[in-house]
Each structure stands twice: as C-alpha cells, then as structure tokens.
C-alpha cells in the first residue's frame, strides 16, 4: 500500500531492514518500535504525527501490543499491512522570522475565553516552575515537565514539543532545552520520546505546522488555533501553550551563519525568492 509521510520517515525506512514490535494499536493509529526508532501508520482521517505514514484506510486493523513489525526493502509490514512511502509531505515547521509579530498575532487569539480555559486546563496539570523555566529557555524545564500529565503523550511532553518546534522555527536550533530533551527522553513513554525528538529536529504535526504558517503570514490564525486545539484530548492545547511560551521570550541559542538585514527603501518581495548560486 502506498502511503504518505515526512522525509524523515522515508529516510528511516531506508536505513536498512529491521525487526520491531507493535507499541500501540488503535483503529486510527498504530505505532511500532524498532530499537530507539518509532514508526507509525495512520488512518485517513487521523492526526498524522511526523513519525507516521498516512494511508487511505478509513480504519486500521488492530494488532496486539508486542506483535511483530518488520521493515524489508523500505516497506513496513505490520498488522497484515505492507506500507511504503510513495508521497512526501512536509513536517518541518516553516521559518518564523519575526517572532514579536507572531507573538502579537497569537496573543490576540489566546485572549478568547474558550482558548484561555483550554490553556488553564493544561497549566493546572503542570508545575508552574517548570513552565517558567521553559519560558526562559532553561534546560531545567525538561525535568520539570517531561512525562507529566494526562494523555497518550503526557501533556508536559506536548508543551515541550510545542516549545521545541516553535523555537526551531525561529532559530533553526533548540539550544540547551533541545539537548536536555535528547539526554532525558528515555524518562517518558517510548512513543512520546519519539515525538519529542522529532520536535527537537523541527518536525511537528500538520496542525502545528499550519499554526506556525498562520503566525508567519498573519492569515487564519484563529482557524489554525482551533484546529490545533482539536488534536487529542490535551495534546493540541499543550503544544499551543508551548508555542506561547516560546514566543513570550525567544531563547537565545547559537544561530547558523546567516545575515539579517535592515529594511531598505525598495519594494520587497512578499514571498521569499530563491538565490541562484
């Protein structure tokens, strides 16, 4: 069966044949673990985390946890399915070059009562000190939030994932917090760890990607926030809080060699143009 996935999953399927086992199985998503790597299969209308291969199936067959899963010739065989990646979809958060403007755009939506209530629900599950640390980009935040809270992915991890993906969009790097996640990821569930490590690399859910795109362009921010909040029971809200914390105080991390420029007196392209080299 032909599926669609991020380029990182395409690469994982091509790192060699592997034996693994089913980690989680439901009608909408199935995850298998191969050593320290997780690869999932998602039903047509399910949420597609960046580790999953999207399929056209309305429902997935159910497998038992621990059932075998194998990768042979870049094809994932699990629960009677044989799934390859024939279509690439983007999973990287797009660049967020103007964080202050993005923060203002997000703040306007975060004042809505229904959004406030969802974020308060997330905050209630997590230690305030951990959230404060995360807002200031301190690596202590990782031990303060990792694995805490409700959900298939603990909501503390969701907050971290939102912060990491947003910071990666701003700086193309996640600094000390990202490094701490790499070191301590084993302290949370295997599936959540896989998603967190993807977030360190700048990968995120399509709904989160759409939010970053909306914040970058100023278009359809309320719709993007609503769509993200609809993800999971608390996951979307957790990621939204993470984005809010990342934008409140963009952390300083080493920046790759690049040059920002002052605006000059010319009409500039509204879309980035390429550079012939």
């Amino acid at each position, binding site marked *: 069966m032909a599926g669609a996935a991020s380029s990182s999953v395409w690469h994982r399927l091509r790192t060699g044949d592997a034996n693994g086992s089913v980690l989680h199985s439901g009608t909408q998503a199935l995850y298998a673990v191969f050593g320290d790597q997780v690869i999932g299969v998602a039903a047509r209308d399910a949420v597609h985390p960046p580790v999953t291969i999207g399929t056209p199936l309305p429902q997935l067959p159910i497998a038992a946890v621990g059932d075998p899963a194998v990768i042979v010739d870049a094809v994932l065989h699990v629960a009677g399915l044989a799934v390859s990646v024939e*279509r690439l979809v983007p999973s990287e958060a797009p660049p967020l070059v103007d964080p202050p403007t993005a923060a203002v755009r997000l703040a306007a939506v975060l004042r809505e009562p229904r959004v406030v209530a969802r974020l308060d629900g997330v905050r209630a599950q997590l230690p305030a000190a951990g959230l404060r640390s995360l807002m200031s980009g301190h690596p202590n935040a990782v031990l303060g939030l990792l694995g805490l809270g409700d959900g298939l992915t603990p909501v503390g991890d969701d907050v971290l994932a939102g912060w990491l993906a947003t910071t990666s969009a701003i700086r193309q790097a996640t600094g000390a917090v990202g490094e701490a996640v790499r070191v301590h990821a084993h302290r949370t569930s295997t599936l959540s760890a896989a998603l967190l490590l993807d977030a360190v690399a700048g990968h995120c859910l399509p709904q989160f990607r759409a939010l970053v795109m909306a914040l970058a362009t100023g278009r359809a921010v309320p719709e993007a926030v609503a769509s993200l909040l609809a993800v999971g029971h608390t996951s979307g809200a957790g990621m939204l809080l993470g984005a809010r914390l990342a934008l409140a105080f963009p952390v300083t991390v080493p920046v790759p060699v690049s040059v920002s420029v002052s605006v000059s007196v010319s009409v500039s*392209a509204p879309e*980035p*143009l*390429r550079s012939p*080299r």
Partner: protein
Amino acid sequence: MSVEHVEIRPGAYADSVALLQVSRDVAAAPGVTAAQVAMATDLNLEVLATMGFTLPPASPNDMVVALRLTDETALAAALTAVDAALAAARKGAAGGGQVSVPARTTASALRRAGGGLALVSVPGASALVEAMDALDAGCDVMIFSDNVPLEQEVAMKGIARERGLLVMGPDCGTAVVGGVGLGFANTVAPGKVGIVAASGTGCQQVLALLDAAGVGVAAALGVGGRDLSAAVGGLSSLTALDRLDADPAVEHILVISKPPASEVAAALASYADGLSTPVRFALLGAGQPDLTAQVEALLSDLGVAVPTWPTWGEPVPQASPGAEGGALRGLFVGGTLCDEAMLLAAEALGPIRSNIPLSPELALDTSLLSSGHVMIDFGDDGLTRGRAHPMIDPTLRLEHLARVAADPETAVVLLDVVLGHGAEDDPAAGLAPGITAARAARTDRGGPPLPVVVACVGTSADPQGLTRQAEALVAAGAEVHLSNAAATRRAIALAAGGTR
C-alpha cells in the same frame, strides 16, 4: 508643494517581481517623485512607513499604491500610469491578454496541460508539496525555491531517481531545456554541449564564455547547489547525465559545481566513464582550475580555438601604493562567482572574510563590514529572505557599495553583473551611478579614483545587450571582463599593488 497619495486596493494581486517593475514604471512618470506599488505585507508596509508614507489599515491580501507627487495636478496622470503598468504586468503574465481561470494546484495544472516539466517557485517551506504533485504526475520538476530542507531534498530526489524522473534544484536558478531558458538563463545558440550544473551563476559564466567562443549549448540542466554534497550524493546529477547521454544532440557534457564532496565527485566520475558521451568535470575548489580554465579545456576537447576573452575599457590605474589600504572588496550577486573569486583571491592574498566563507572562522557578522579582504554574496539565502534577489533588486548591494567606497582601507572593488532573462532589464543603469559615486568618494578626499573591476556575465544575444551593458560600466569608470576569473585576477593585482 509635494503631495502624497495612498490608496488600498482590496483583493488586487500581482506578484512581487511584477510590482517592482510597476513601481519603477510609475516612478518614471511625469510629476512623480516616489512610487511604490506593493502587496500590503508587513515588510512592505514597513518599507512604505520608512519612506514617510502615512498608511491606512491593510492586510496582505490588499495592494497598496503609494505615490509622492510634485503637486496635485500630476495625480491623474500618475494613476493612469499605475493602471497601465498593472495592465501590462497582467498582460505579460496571462500570455497576450488571454483570460483564463488559473489552475489552483500543481496537480490540476498538470492534469489540464500535461507536459514533461513543472517549475516550482513558492516559498521553500511549501515547495515539497508542489514538487511531489509534479513527480506523482510523472513530470520532471525544476524547483526555483530556496530554503528547502536538505532531508526533503534527499528523499524527493530518491523517489525521483527510482521513477526515472529529474529533480532540478532546489535553489535551481538556471536551466536551458529544449531550447528554452528557465529562471535566470542566458540566450544561447543551439549546439552540441550539454551541461549539468550544481551552480546557477557558474552555469551562466560557462554559457557566456561558450557563446563568446561561438559554441552553442544543447541543454543545461540545473540540479541544485547541494546535489554534489555528501548528503545528496549527486542523485540528480546521475539522472541528468543519463538524459544528456541519451540526447543525440549532445556530443560533450560538462558538469559544473561549487566545491563537491570528494567521494561524490569520484562516484560521478566513475559513472561518467560508463557513458557513451565524453564528460568533463568543472568542479571548483582550492587548487582546482577556475571556470574559465575549464571552459578553455572544453574548447580544446571540441577542437575549437580559445578566443581572447572580451574585456572593455582601459585597465584602471592602480591607486598609489600606501596611500590607501590594500583591501579587496568583492560585492557579488552570484554565489558561485563569489566562491570562485574567493578561491582565487585567498591563494594570492590570504584570508577573505565573507557571508559565505571558505571556512567558518572567516564568517562576517550581520553588519557585513570587516577590516581586510571581504567578499559578499548578496544572493545568499540570508540576504534574500523576504526580498527579491539582487539580480532583480540591486538596492542592498548599491547601499553597501557606498559604504565600501567610504572605507579608506578599500583598495579595489570587484563586482559582478549577471545578464540574461529574469535579471534586471538594465543592471548597468543602476550600477553605473554607484560606481561613479564610489570612485568620486575617493577623489573627494584628494586621492586617485577607486579602482572598480566588473565581471559582466552574459551572451551577445541577451536582452540587456552585453556590449551596451559593458560600455555603460566602462563609461562610469570600471574595467570590465567577461571572465570572472580574469576580473578577479585583475582586482587581486590591484589590491596587491602589482601591475599586469
């Protein structure tokens, strides 16, 4: 007394390059002292505010027309000029004024029109979706966009290679396919040379030199500047070599790249040995021949005499030794031309600081200013985010030229001008006053004029007119070469205080 007119046109749209031209056309209208017609993005609104315009609320979906006029009587004619320029832009875009409902997705466009090649030019974060649409439709794809993640590039090219399709790019700025120039392409005669280019302006330099030697080109397939990196492994170069080898019109193949991964270069050379068409590699790197030397070798392969490469103007006199600093300052729009110049200059002069440095410790900070020898690529990703490329909008480079000229340490300025389709209509017209002012800045302080050397890369049939451009630059006081390597060597000699 000067008057200001600002109007918002909700829902009106034209792309940024078209609007740049519209703004220029309107600015030239009688009674107009400043004109900016742009989509009301945050960045453009900031630019307009910087220019002193008072702006009403607007969204990025709106077009803003901002005019400063000598007096109110000029307004009606100026607005007529705006509408005429916008109409001309629309007519150019729609192909003779034909009105048709544009396809909304790449997939639907390909279903409607078919065709073997799709050109994708959207922000890099969105390029993958469009490119996959093309590949899924069985088409090759040229990705003009930059800022496409490397991991995506590798996966996309892997899928394309499995399907026998060609991904040209990302960041592919130049190609000649089926006799048609794509992106920033020069006008060349048909011929028997096929080019695989992991370098846009490097390809243009080769096209220009071959044209000067009277040699035509069958095809130039851009593959993106990272294709010969270890991560990508030359995936598109392999397919491009296959295509050119299968093309009966191609008798010689030239592969051009910025410094490649050595193992990839070796693998490609081995692959090329198995082809029936002879392949020459022009790969830049320390100690490697420059592009001009590589073209001369290719001409030798072809049995064509190497011409004297064109130069225009008298050799500019060297500044009096010791009176000013000895720093070479290169300001480029072409990344490969900048790379080539740095490789040559580093060998002769020592470390060159740059925004695309040969080694990380030589990186410039965001001011782009430094003591010593400096070369800047104004087309680098970091300088084109949110603005047009300097081959379209020269503003940044012109501003920096003035700064460099004012620096007493500057001994010589090296510039490139790249002609062809897609580039500015008349780059010399914009650059010449800057060169004149730069030279005058030095004489105003009592010294001799600042030497300015220009590499003018273009072909005789390019729309801007190679000779006309070169002569305009000469009139401003520059010494002009067709060969970037020759121009660089000349600038090195001037900076080093030697004569040639």
